[in-house]
């Protein structure tokens, strides 16, 4: 279905209106200045056309008044755009507390998607309408970009790191999913559809794949299989290796003084190259690095969601540690985000609790509106 305006993309997220508003403001400005200048020019060009080959007009030196006028006014206008743009951006950047998490892994040239309830999809994303969705994205290979025009949002998916993106769909339907960052041969083929469903239909769809195991259980299995248990303990209570219970979302003190926040990036990093951050008191390098060969990005995500499930409470509270005070009082109703964990650690650890796979997120799937 098309929107009421020709040549406008569909609006399907609570966020679309804000972006469109800014867009129309700028279209207006552009039209205004284009008309202003071109009409003036045409007027002058006709009025002062050369009448005799020898005529010499009197020179005009210039005018300080005018110069200041047309530097200051454009500057003020520009600032208005800046402020508006920034406010929209911040709205995008603020993570909702109670979002339903979905894991996304990009690889040349497909999107692999896994719901906390276990459903897996490829190049398809099913979400309920009117529910805040938070994607945690990464990639196996090069940079990709998760782009849903109808939601007016996108985020680069950067290798070696997690990016988050979130939105709240407002209208059931099927919308384009594009890869917007050039990623090689089949870049233009790396897309699919986002299907927004009524909550009831969505639950139907969910129950369809109920038998599949959730990332948490999958992670737990990996935790056994990969031999993590031998050092971190059967329940992650720790042993030769540091304990994992309650680690997620806490501040971890490292060898060499500095403390870091145990967010997704930290845990992924501790799996991929453990030597790079050694937890205080575990100097001797026991833990082997797990490369792509042993653990795909999806596996890592499963392990992370398992480890998250080990710290139901701790994950709370320190989220704001890294969110700018300036933002604390910002309104929470942003819809889509396009910032990396860097930008959003605070926020996304905060709601790590809210969306903790065990405590909330799994129900978050089933208990989604309407059930």
């Amino acid at each position, binding site marked *: 279905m098309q929107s009421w305006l020709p040549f406008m993309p569909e609006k399907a997220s609570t966020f679309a209106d804000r972006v469109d508003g800014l867009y129309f403001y700028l279209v207006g400005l552009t039209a205004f200045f284009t008309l202003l200048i071109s009409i003036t020019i045409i007027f002058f060009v006709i009025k002062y056309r050369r009448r005799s080959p020898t005529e010499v007009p009197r020179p005009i030196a210039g005018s300080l008044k005018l110069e200041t006028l047309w530097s200051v006014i454009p500057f003020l206008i520009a600032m208005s755009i800046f402020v508006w743009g920034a406010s929209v951006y911040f709205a995008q950047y603020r993570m909702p507390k109670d979002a339903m998490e979905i894991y996304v892994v990009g690889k040349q040239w497909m999107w692999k998607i896994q719901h906390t309830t276990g459903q897996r999809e490829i190049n398809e994303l099913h979400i309920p309408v009117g529910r805040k969705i938070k994607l945690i994205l990464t990639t196996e290979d090069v940079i990709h970009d998760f782009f849903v025009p109808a939601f007016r949002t996108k985020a680069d998916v950067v290798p070696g790191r997690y990016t988050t993106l979130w939105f709240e769909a407002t209208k059931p339907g099927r919308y384009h999913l594009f890869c917007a960052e050039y990623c090689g041969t089949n870049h233009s083929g790396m897309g699919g559809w986002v299907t927004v469903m009524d909550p009831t239909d969505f639950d139907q769809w969910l129950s369809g794949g109920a038998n599949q195991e959730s990332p948490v259980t999958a992670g737990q299995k990996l935790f056994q299989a990969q031999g993590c248990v031998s050092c971190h303990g059967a329940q992650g209570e720790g042993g030769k290796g540091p304990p994992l219970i309650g680690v997620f979302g806490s501040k971890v003190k490292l*060898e*060499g003084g500095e403390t870091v926040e145990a967010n997704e990036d930290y845990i992924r990093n501790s799996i991929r*190259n453990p030597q790079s951050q050694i937890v205080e008191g575990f100097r001797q390098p026991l833990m082997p690095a797990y490369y792509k060969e042993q653990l795909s990005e999806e596996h890592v995500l499963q392990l992370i969601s398992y480890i998250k499930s080990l710290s139901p409470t701790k994950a709370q509270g320190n989220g704001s540690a890294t969110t700018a005070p300036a933002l604390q009082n910002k309104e929470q109703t942003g819809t889509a985000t396009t910032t990396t964990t860097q930008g959003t650690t605070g926020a996304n650890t905060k709601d790590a609790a809210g969306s903790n796979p065990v405590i909330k997120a799994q129900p978050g799937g089933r208990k989604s509106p309407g059930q």
Partner: protein
Amino acid sequence: MAVGHVETHSAQTALAHHFDNMEQQREAGSIGMWVFLVQEIMFFGGLFLAYSIFRAKFPEAFAAASNHLNWKLGGINTVVLIVSSLTMALAVYYAQVGKRRPQIWFLTVTLLLGATFLVIKGFEYAEKFRDHLFPGPGFHWEGHGDPNQVQIFFWIYFAMTGLHALHMIIGIGIISYLIFYARRGRFTPEYHAPVEISGLYWHFVDIVWIFLFPLLYLLGRHLGE
């Protein structure tokens, strides 16, 4: 350096056809060289930026790797370069006052010092190759610190010192060119711009090393092995 000599040894008379007078030509030469050096600053700047960021990211690994470098050789080389800077400055001085013999002599010493620097650097490189510390498939590291990150240190180390050495080699070429013409008695108190601006270049290369030495060899020593 190109900027300088290209212009001057062209015409038989020292004054190139398109300049009005020697003064203008000299000025053009030195400004030209300075602008060129600014471009050099930005060129190395990119590497220094990369260094700073990764050092901040991987402090442990960088300290470990840096401690593995041979600071004595690095120090000796620093001294060698500073001395060569002095001799270069003196060579310029004697060109200015028009004393040919000491000028040639100091140019030669500068050249030899430059060569010494490269030889010592050569030994250092050889050492690193022997210990499989050259980044790439053959890289091997069992000191503490994540091998990947240590490798990045050595990557930056070789990139920076390598480019610096390249500049030294060019510099040596220029100096031998200067010696050649100095012996022909080309340079006079009126006309010695080439010596002067080549001096600028040489000092710049020295300055780069003045930063490389502490950054690569020394930071992290206090942590001990």
